[in-house]
């Protein structure tokens, strides 16, 4: 067989093999794995490249590749089951800042200078050491910091604001095609979706991405960027309608002369008032 054909075939085989291996290894992003695995990946890459270009003996290459692939996978599994092994292979976190104070001995242990610590904090958008309550060095080298309570972003809880529970928006249309599975998890079906699109006056083929949130509101992004989509206003309209009805009831109460009827109108208006207060976080947010 001509040399170039051998190289071509070997390259294709090694390429597919590595592709399969990457899926086996899992989804841990390359940025966040402990340094040990980075070396493993590099070694695999080099051997695969050499094998593909036929520089090393095929048998040797395959043996080497198997070692570098199978042993890290086995090690990962063992680390998953066995805590002691996990600490040996991947390591434990080191606390760098506790209760706002830097633990200098720990920094020394990890051979971190204070400048490096500050630099890592800045990478996490923390520019003021005084704001940090707790910071830890992860086994993969990242520093994660928790800010002091009064320097953390405000949540609705702190404001005493009631916010209705929500779940994530699901993508139901991708690249013009309707996806039935996400629709089903929302408890909706194609007919509902097609009705909604009719209301907007668009057909699914014109939509690049379409999402539905847990309130049942649709958001679409069209292929044609010239057309402007309006925000869904159904809930605000509902709130406004109820407010108008309440105002009408007060007017009726004022217009009528009969005391009993007046009382009924006022009572109903009060009921609506209470309802509106309850519905406010659900409809107006």
């Amino acid at each position, binding site marked *: 067989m001509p040399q170039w054909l051998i190289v071509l075939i070997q390259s294709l085989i090694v390429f597919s093999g590595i592709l399969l291996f990457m899926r086996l290894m899992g989804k841990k992003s390359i940025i966040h794995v402990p340094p040990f695995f980075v070396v493993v990946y590099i070694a695999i890459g080099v051997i695969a490249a050499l094998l593909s270009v036929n520089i090393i003996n095929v048998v040797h290459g395959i043996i080497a590749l198997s070692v570098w692939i199978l042993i890290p996978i086995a090690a990962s599994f063992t680390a998953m089951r066995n805590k002691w092994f996990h600490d040996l292979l991947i390591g434990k976190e080191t606390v760098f800042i506790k209760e706002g104070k830097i633990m200098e001995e720990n920094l020394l242990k990890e051979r971190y200078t204070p400048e490096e610590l500050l630099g890592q904090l800045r990478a996490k958008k923390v520019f003021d050491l005084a704001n940090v309550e707790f910071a830890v060095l992860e086994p993969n080298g990242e520093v994660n910091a928790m800010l002091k309570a009064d320097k953390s972003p405000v949540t609705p809880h702190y404001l005493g604001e009631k916010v209705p529970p*929500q779940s994530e928006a699901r993508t139901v249309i991708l690249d013009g095609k309707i996806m039935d599975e996400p629709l089903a998890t929302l408890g909706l079906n194609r007919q509902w979706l097609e009705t909604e699109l009719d209301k907007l006056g668009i057909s699914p083929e014109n939509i690049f991405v379409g999402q539905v949130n847990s309130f049942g509101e649709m958001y679409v992004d069209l292929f044609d960027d010239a057309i402007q989509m309006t925000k869904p206003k159904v809930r605000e309209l509902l709130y406004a*309608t109820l407010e108008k*009805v309440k105002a*009408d*009831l007060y007017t009726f109460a004022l217009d009528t002369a009969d005391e009993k*009827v007046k009382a009924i109108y006022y009572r109903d208006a009060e009921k*609506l008032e209470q309802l509106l207060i*309850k*519905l406010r976080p659900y409809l107006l947010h």
Partner: protein
Amino acid sequence: MTVGSKLKQTLASLRGAESVLRTYANQTQKKENKKVYQEAVQVSEEIIYSLEERLKQLEFQEPQYKGF
């Protein structure tokens, strides 16, 4: 506009709002939200009933405005 026709308009708006609330009550999956919407439907129904009663009274008093 007479009191009767104003009342009918308000009633129509309230009925419309009630149907939207009913749709939300059916559609939402979170229990807490469902409860709130169902309560809203309940209150709306009570008010609709009371308004319909008043409307009947009015039509009785002024039969020339009866209808729908």
